[in-house]
């Protein structure tokens, strides 16, 4: 995280934060870092929007069994996002197609976005963190 400071407006409105997560859930710690950052930001009343891009869509597969690899289930932690008031979730349409996951059930709050929609998300926030 760079030296992000709240908007200089002096108003109480928190900065709009977008987290872009492009990694699969296992095999590296990046996806987990994105999720931990999201939960921490939410605890600061800055519930971020989450954009699942590229391999990031693989985090959304249902029925992940973390126990099979003695790790925590990334999918189960994602299930807790509504309790953290994180309810803006965007999913890369092209990536779903690439992995043959276009029929996969998505979180209730999720919205599938195309390239134009992704651009709009990037423009519509104050800070972007990529994982």
């Amino acid at each position, binding site marked *: 995280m760079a030296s992000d400071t709240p908007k200089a407006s002096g108003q109480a409105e928190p900065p709009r934060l977008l987290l872009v997560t492009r990694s699969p859930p296992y095999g590296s710690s990046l996806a987990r870092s994105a999720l*931990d950052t999201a*939960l*921490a930001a*939410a*605890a*600061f009343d800055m519930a971020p929007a989450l954009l699942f891009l590229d391999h990031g869509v693989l985090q959304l597969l249902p029925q992940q069994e*973390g126990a099979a690899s003695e790790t*925590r*289930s990334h999918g*189960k*932690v994602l*299930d*807790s996002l509504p*309790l*953290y*008031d994180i309810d803006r979730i965007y999913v890369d349409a092209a990536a779903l197609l690439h992995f043959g996951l276009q029929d996969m059930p998505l979180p209730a709050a999720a919205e599938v976005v195309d390239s134009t929609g992704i651009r709009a998300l990037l423009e519509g926030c104050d800070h972007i963190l990529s994982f």
Partner: protein
Amino acid sequence: MLGADAFDTEGFLRHLKDWSPAVAEQIASDEGIALDEAHWEIIYLLRDYYTEFDSSPAMRPLVKYCAAKLGADKGKSMYLLSLFPGSPARLGSKIAGLPKPENCL
């Protein structure tokens, strides 16, 4: 009684499977809390949360989860603070044998 090496440096149980109601009593006693029915209800709720979400809750999700499972009267910070003073998510998780909440600020 579990030995000191069953706990990490902050007093959280290292392994979920080591937990039992007796261990909860032991941890609570170290924290100066005498467990009653109201405590146990939250302790088991925390363990349910962990089973469902593979993580210990921060305060906000704990309050919401309590409201959803136990009703609006108990889904309040004040109620949880009265049972587990200071930091209910942290202290409750500790007594419930869960890992320390990572986003508990």
